[in-house]
């Protein structure tokens, strides 16, 4: 098992011009670790992070799009795996933070903790699907993983975070972040 913030620090060290789209609890961790204009916070209806990312990957084929999804979130939009598998954008990277719980909503467990998300992605047609449960393996695999043609799916087996942390939604949803994001993409 890994800690989410440690995984994100390892990822942040590898990034250049990629678009990163973190959902829910991941968004707050990511914002603290890597505050950059090319972050897209998947606002609005829960579960649609992977779909926002698919739209971005199609709209900007020149950029790699990395979605930092949650297991509870993905379960709300599981069909998106099949849609992404069918469209098969090469610039699409899907990280799934798997902690077996709806962390942002009271820490309740997901319906079945043992579900094999990488196996689901594989069956849906993703080009590469892997699991990571130690930080050392994740860190050493990352540079190569990020160079492969997508869609790529990686399940990150992480520990549950703190219950009811102090999430600053006002900062996260500041309209200026969206303006900065679009300006950074134009620039």
């Amino acid at each position, binding site marked *: 098992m890994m800690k989410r913030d440690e995984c994100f620090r390892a990822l942040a060290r590898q990034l250049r011009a990629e678009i990163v789209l973190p959902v829910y609890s991941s968004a707050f961790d990511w914002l603290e670790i890597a505050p950059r204009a090319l972050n897209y916070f998947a606002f*609005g209806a829960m579960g*649609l992070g992977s*779909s926002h990312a698919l*739209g971005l990957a199609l709209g900007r084929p020149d950029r790699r799009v990395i979605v930092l999804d949650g297991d509870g979130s993905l379960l709300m*939009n599981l*069909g998106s795996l099949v849609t992404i598998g069918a469209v098969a954008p090469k610039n699409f990277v899907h990280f799934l933070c798997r902690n077996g719980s709806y962390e942002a909503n009271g820490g309740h467990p997901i319906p079945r903790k043992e579900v094999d998300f990488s196996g689901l992605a594989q069956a849906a047609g993703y080009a590469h699907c892997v699991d990571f449960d130690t930080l050392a393996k994740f860190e050493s695999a990352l540079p190569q993983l990020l160079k492969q043609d997508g869609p790529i799916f990686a399940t990150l087996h992480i520990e549950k975070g703190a219950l009811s942390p102090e999430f600053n939604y006002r900062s996260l949803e500041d309209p200026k972040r969206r303006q900065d994001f679009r300006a950074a*993409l134009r620039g």
Partner: protein
Amino acid sequence: MNWSDTFLDVLKKNDVRLISYVPDNVLTPLIKGVTADNYFISVNATREDEAMGIVAGAWMGGMKGAVMMQTSGFAVAPNALASLLVPFQIPAILVISERGTLGEFNIGQVAVAKIMRPILDTLSVEHHTLTDEAKLGFIVDSSIKQAVTTQSPVAFILSPLLTGGNPVAHAKLSA
């Protein structure tokens, strides 16, 4: 031109390239037209809210998009409309083939047809019911420009008066 060619022509003229759709019988000429034309990027989505998420992401990346769905599919999507497209000012073009009226056999479709416009009105989403091919070009073109300029979604409801309705429904009614 028939209604679907006119409709797709207006989308093209307004640079609406990404078309995400949940398949439907009445939408067939639009879906066939989109998938046959390399100008469009078409995505067959599994649900209507998923399709709205895809179009939201594309817009943030600088590409305009439309979501095509059936009346009952619209009823899946009010969460994505109310908490994503409206508050975050995404000018998604919503195209809804109208079921539940003018010869419907399915009671579920009838119920959703009655709440569709009130939901759009409650969310202050501009909507137009397209009944006549002669007026379609003006309505769709001006409304897409308005949606983009004012950064708001817009919905076009394709009436059976325009499309001829669902042939399966007609067959079941007369059986």
